[in-house]
């Protein structure tokens, strides 16, 4: 099966890439087409490789910053899974394995850019400056949606698969209308999964973005699975190749390589800001954990696959790079771990003390102003609650 082969080829890609740093560009041409297209700037072993289209000048401070982001978001995720196991959260969708895709793309955004996430983009949320507590409020079920999207230009988590691609495209066309296009223009990034690419919405968003040249970057994290369904249920061609049929560029990036995700997203966002229209980025990665805490992946996938992907861990390679290039003291890693533990501790403590919302608040914000019916329902509900207060007093 063609697709299966492509997947296997891509997963053996690290071996090819290892030799690439020391070899010439001719080696690139030797690889099968899918691999030749995969942008990688940092190998799983932490070796820096160059790519003609994506030069990345990055300072030691920036690399340390990315490493810190990666470790902290993994820690938040780890803490949230534990909180769910202990009954403190209703559910959690883990980002384990996708940290580089999220941090790399998240750090490529400017403050005025707008991001539309799925339900798994905790790493992007972190980069946008959203308080992790806001995420937990949602998964603990003490808020309706979570946060004000305009505060950090980070839209609400969207759990109806694919819809956000159209919201993002409409938002991008709004930016266009406002004339915020040009060198210091604004752009939109929208996140979605490999499974979502089968939805009509996503394909319709591609068409609208394309014919309107909208400033939107489609960032697909291909984590190989949509709950229990592997990629070959969704597509017979590599996902990034779909873009060409819609008339805009598509690029596949090593989603476990934070440098490559940063460089590729930066370039695509800048192109969008400058009026060059949309790009599809396929971040080739792996969902290391369950779909959500209610899922049991052993029912449908082999653990060997997970073991293979562990060798391509997105954090370990940055650590190896920092060590190899002697950019940090070893104590740096301990400091980051300590900071991550502290953030984790804060998340845990705050989660356990979150207040439940007031019952009557369920009638708020249904409409701009209260309708007569809403007011009547609320009054009836208040009277109903009061009847219990009376009962209690009588006992």
């Amino acid at each position, binding site marked *: 099966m063609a697709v299966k082969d492509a997947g296997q080829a891509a997963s053996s890609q690290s071996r090819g890439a290892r030799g690439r740093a020391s070899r010439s560009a001719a080696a690139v041409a030797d690889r099968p087409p899918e691999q030749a297209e995969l942008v990688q700037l940092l190998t799983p072993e932490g070796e820096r490789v160059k790519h003609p289209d994506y030069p990345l000048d990055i300072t030691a401070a920036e690399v340390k910053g990315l490493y810190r982001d990666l470790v902290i978001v993994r820690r938040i995720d780890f803490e949230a899974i534990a909180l769910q196991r202990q009954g403190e959260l209703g559910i959690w969708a883990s980002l384990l394995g996708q940290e580089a895709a999220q941090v790399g793309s998240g750090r490529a955004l400017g403050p005025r850019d707008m991001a539309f996430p799925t339900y798994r983009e905790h790493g992007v949320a972190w980069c946008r400056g959203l308080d992790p507590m806001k995420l937990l409020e949602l998964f603990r079920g003490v808020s309706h949606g979570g946060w004000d999207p305009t505060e950090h230009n980070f839209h609400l988590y969207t759990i109806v698969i694919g819809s956000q691609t159209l919201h993002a495209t409409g938002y991008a066309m709004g930016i266009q209308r406002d004339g915020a296009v040009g060198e210091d223009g604004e752009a939109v990034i929208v996140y979605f999964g490999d499974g979502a690419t089968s*939805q009509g919405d996503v394909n319709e968003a591609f068409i609208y973005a394309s014919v309107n040249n909208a400033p939107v970057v489609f960032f697909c994290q291909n984590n190989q699975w949509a709950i229990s369904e592997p990629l070959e249920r969704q597509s017979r061609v590599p996902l990034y190749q779909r873009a060409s049929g819609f008339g805009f560029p598509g690029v596949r990036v090593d989603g476990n390589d934070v440098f490559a995700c940063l460089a590729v997203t930066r370039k695509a966002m800048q192109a969008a800001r400058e009026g060059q229209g949309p790009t599809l980025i396929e971040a080739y990665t792996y969902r290391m954990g369950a779909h959500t805490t209610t899922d049991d992946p052993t029912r449908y996938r082999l653990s060997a696959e997970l073991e293979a992907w562990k060798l391509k861990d997105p954090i370990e390679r940055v650590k190896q790079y920092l060590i190899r290039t002697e950019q940090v003291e070893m104590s740096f890693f301990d400091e980051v771990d300590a900071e991550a533990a502290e953030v984790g501790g804060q998340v845990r403590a705050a989660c356990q003390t979150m207040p439940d919302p007031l019952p009557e608040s369920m009638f708020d914000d*249904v409409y701009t102003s209260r309708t007569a019916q809403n007011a009547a329902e609320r009054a009836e509900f208040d009277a109903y609650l009061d009847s219990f207060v009376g009962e209690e007093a009588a006992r």
Partner: protein
Amino acid sequence: MADVITYREAVSEGIAREMRRDPSVVCLGEDIGAAGGVFKTTAGLFAEFGPDRIKDTPISEQAIVGMAMGAAMTGVRPVAEIMFSDFLACCWDYLANEIPKMRYMTGGQVKVPLVVRTANGGGLGFGAQHSQSVENWALAVPGLKVVAPATPADVIGLLAAAIRSDDPVLFFEHKGLFASKGETAPDGHLVPLGQAAVARAGSDVTIVALASTVPLALAAADELAEGGVAAEVVDLRCLVPLDMATVLASVGKTSRLLIVEENPYQGGWGGTVASVVADEGFELLDAPIRRVAAECVPLPFADVLEDQVIPTTAKVVAALRSLLAY
């Protein structure tokens, strides 16, 4: 097979019985294969019937339902799963414009014998987009049959009738009932569509309920029985066809009617039941018809709020008391 099964197990059992009986029955949906469905309602089917009859589809509700229609036109009996009933909105064109109109527009020449099964309802803290009770959406479309069982045996019996029906059927499985247990159904069990059940007999007041509100009504009836009140509980089982004869017969005995529904009051199915009783049974009544329905707000994630948005036993008891005191 054990004598007692869960509502969840009854779903796969009901499908399996029909699939063994009729090779033209096929299932399609997201994660229904090796994973056995995200609610485990198709557990075991993939192992028994294989990938040709239990098909994992790409994620597209439009494709699932739209293609089920095409397949049904060839004589296949598709049983399509839409994971959450909220996502019926993602394929509503096919359910509202195409599927229910086929027979009519072809003068009865084309039939689309398909079933769309879906997990409906709230109470599990899944929030505004994964918790709605949307059986009333379907009620607004002539041409669809609408089924919503309350017990494991009814799941099996109604699935048999739905799958054998030559009309398209929307089959609502309630998420809050999946873990509930009940007697299983004997072999060959079939519950005809459009026959309500009297779940508890009584003479003082009638409670009309559906799916999740049946156990609520029964609990409320138990509570009132302690005070000597005998409530009759009618489980509608189906909204289309709607068995008003059973409702009217019950109101004829009790003269009082309370309707308990999980969909919002505004546009809820209880409005239809109430209007028929007002039209055809006005003289039977000794008190105004009352409805306990969900508040007209989106479903909150917060348990403390969600518990209050949808009907509770306490609300049903309170409504019954006021009705009896009228």
